[in-house]
């Protein structure tokens, strides 16, 4: 009974199976060929998934909104006048915040000058077309790739908030690993909304290492004598991340408690992101300006 006795179809199937086994165990250095197959599949799927993505955002908003009891409608109506007054107060507060905002912009530009790292980037807005759907995939797929200057390692933002880092790029799409993906560790500093620039430059801030601990959550432990309170912001200061990501907001401290492992020595802080990163509809990307490109705006 020789090889010729084996039907060619069965032989092909066994060879295919063998190839799959080899492919499954290949070291990541030798898996570049997968992009050849992946690119057309993504190209075909992107138009359909892109169209569906806004539905996710809308549905999410609907779920997040608290339901209104019909019986309470009359009482709510009575509260409208009160709300009007509050709105007037909010308007005043808004004017204050605008003033504060302009001050922050000034401080930011001052910080950039001090560090001597002016950012030669243009911000492009990307649409999120899909999210990774297996438990080990904490990624977002965006609708621009290497043809538009997107490269591996670029930080991805949502306004002043850090979303993640570009981890893979094809011609038309890029995959972003979320900052909250399991195993991610980043260095950050704890600041108030109005931390003076000179304090930051003199190193007068509390630093910590954040561990991703859930879909939109980080945890960290710090020494008990460090001044930390709920509501403070965390900003990325991590040399493993590009310059464009430094100083971006990671989240807000939601809980400060004694560290269960060393309650007398350390405190544990729980930080939550400002938005649920997995459900973002659009993200921003600072694409470095190369020679021949002008500085663009959003």
């Amino acid at each position: 009974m020789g090889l010729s006795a084996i039907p060619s179809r069965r032989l092909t199937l066994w060879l295919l199976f063998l190839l799959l086994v080899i492919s499954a165990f290949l070291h990541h250095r030798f898996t570049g060929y997968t992009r050849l197959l992946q690119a057309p599949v993504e190209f075909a799927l992107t138009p359909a998934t892109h169209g569906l993505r806004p539905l996710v955002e809308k549905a999410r908003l609907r779920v997040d909104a608290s339901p209104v009891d019909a019986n309470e409608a009359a009482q709510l109506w009575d509260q409208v006048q009160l709300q009007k007054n509050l709105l007037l107060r909010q308007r005043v507060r808004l004017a204050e915040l605008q003033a504060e905002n302009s001050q922050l912009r000034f401080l930011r530009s001052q910080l950039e000058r001090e560090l001597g790292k002016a950012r030669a980037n243009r911000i492009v807005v990307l649409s999120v077309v899909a999210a990774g759907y297996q438990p080990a995939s904490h990624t977002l797929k965006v609708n621009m790739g290497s043809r538009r200057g997107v490269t591996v390692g670029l930080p991805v933002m949502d306004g002043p908030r850090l979303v993640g880092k570009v981890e893979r790029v094809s011609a038309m799409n890029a995959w972003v690993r979320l900052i909250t993906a399991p195993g991610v560790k980043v260095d950050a500093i704890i600041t108030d909304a109005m931390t003076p620039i000179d304090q930051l430059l003199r190193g007068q801030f509390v630093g910590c290492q954040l561990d991703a601990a859930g879909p939109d959550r980080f945890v960290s432990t710090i020494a008990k004598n460090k001044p930390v309170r709920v509501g403070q912001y965390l900003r990325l200061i991590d040399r493993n991340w590009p310059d464009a990501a430094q100083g971006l907001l990671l989240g807000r401290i939601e809980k400060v408690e004694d560290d269960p492992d060393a309650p007398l020595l350390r405190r544990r802080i729980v930080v939550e992101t400002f938005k649920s990163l997995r459900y973002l509809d659009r993200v921003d990307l600072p694409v470095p300006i190369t020679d021949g490109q002008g500085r663009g705006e959003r």
Partner: protein
Amino acid sequence: MNWVVFAIFTYIIMALQQGLAPMLDLQVGREVITPQLVLVLAVFVGLFTPRHAMLGAWFIIGLLVDLTHGGFALQASDPARGGQLTLIGPYTLGYLAGGLVIGQLRSMVYRRHPVSMGFLVVVCGLAVELVVVFIMTVRQTYDPLMSWSAWNQLAVRGLCLLYSGAIGTILAVGLIRLAPLFHFTDAKRQTPRVY
């Protein structure tokens, strides 16, 4: 089976999986539980298709999942290639294993009952996930992934499967009505292949 209809349905389900699955997410502790709509389609096809066509369909679906699921996070990030690992094999082999399981089990269940489909989604999905977790755990020895824990993955994937089973039971009501579009040939009437 009408392969054109299968291709159209696969495209729609893949698009729904990628685009709409986050809408159905459940957060359990630190993990996000996402239903596997693609697995539901695979089980639906597996229930009514002859063995060879069924394995072909599961192979195609597994390959597509390998290419689109979003990749695994590598521990050692390569600046040139990034830290994401896309492999052809884990899900393809997993789905082939799932196809073999459904091939054995489908004669024991009442195929046109939605609960049968939900049950098979869980059981076949378990075969798929066991293969995937086994492969990725073996790979840990020479190409480690970021924060990979086999037990944690099995637990999360198990919850995903239970959720997928529930969704599959609901979807089965509609899918079974659409079965005539696929022109399924009854698997029982197929004559055995003689080599």
